[in-house]
């Protein structure tokens, strides 16, 4: 039962910091490969797309349109370009959560991955805030009264922290409970009983957390891009 990430072997040193080959790294590269493969296949098929969609084209168009409409309805007007970005983030988190089904250790059960995803949202929130609100961006930190400045600052910092910990905690909880169950069961029962747990922790909680991560990122970014 190993709940923490194992260091398989030393890869190289980066400015004196040892970089290890971990389960997370392997799973992330596999997921990246799958996503890039999907993108390349879609790009090749794009040439043969027709006016009236059918089959493969139908699926792709439905996915892209659903995500675009969802982004527009959540973020309001002026959300151009965020649809594809959030589609990518959503697909990555979804595949990362589902990868537990294929015997990989979910990369999202590693604080480094969720922290990186949350930092992306953090950077987007503040760059967009500065670009859209200009002076109002700084004014918002002193909004009801200058006394509230530390509270507002902590509130801004807690956004990415809570985003990262929510995804990490939920997926790690699933990993731990499943690890305990797998350790408890005799070998013959390991095929039947954990299926239900996989259905709940990987499929249900995984898709829910991916959805929640994207929708919360959208709301945070949309909050900062309103000009008042």
């Amino acid at each position, binding site marked *: 039962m190993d*709940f*923490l990430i194992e260091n398989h072997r030393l890869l190289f040193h980066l400015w004196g910091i040892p970089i290890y080959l971990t389960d997370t790294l392997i799973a992330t590269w596999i997921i990246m490969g799958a996503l890039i493969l999907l993108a390349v296949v879609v790009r090749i098929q794009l040439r043969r797309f027709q006016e009236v969609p059918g089959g493969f084209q139908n699926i792709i168009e439905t996915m892209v349109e659903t995500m675009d409409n969802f982004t527009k309805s959540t973020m309001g007007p002026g959300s151009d370009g965020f649809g594809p970005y959030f589609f990518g983030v959503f697909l990555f988190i979804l595949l990362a959560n589902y990868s537990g089904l294929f015997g990989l250790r979910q990369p999202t059960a590693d604080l480094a991955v969720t922290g990186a995803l949350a930092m992306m949202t953090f950077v987007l929130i503040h760059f967009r805030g500065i670009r859209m609100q200009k002076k109002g961006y700084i004014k918002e930190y002193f909004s009801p009264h200058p006394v509230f400045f530390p509270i507002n600052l902590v509130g801004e910092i807690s956004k990415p922290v*809570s985003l990262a*910990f*929510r995804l*990490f*905690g*939920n997926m*790690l*909880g699933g990993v*731990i409970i499943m690890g305990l169950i797998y350790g408890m069961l005799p070998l013959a029962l390991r095929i039947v009983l954990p299926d239900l747990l996989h259905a709940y922790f990987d499929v249900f909680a995984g898709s*829910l*957390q991916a*959805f*929640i991560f994207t*929708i*919360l990122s959208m*709301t945070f970014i949309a909050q900062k891009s309103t000009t008042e």
Partner: protein
Amino acid sequence: MDGRSFILGMSALSAGICTLSGLGSGLGQGIAAGKAAEAVGRQPEARNSILSTMLVGAAVAETCSVYGLVIALILLMANPLV
């Protein structure tokens, strides 16, 4: 008694107490789900927007119990006191 084993035992105990943070978020999520069910009963056509609003609210309410879980894990696996 050995100091180290005392610290370890108390850490295990406090990790169990950290799990109690699930109490509040469980109550909150239950209230949110109940209110959402009421809202759907009153306005069945707004079901989709009510569902997504409820999910986001429930996720935010869950944060504090996830913090409890993380603290319990730190106490059990990466104990800073020992």
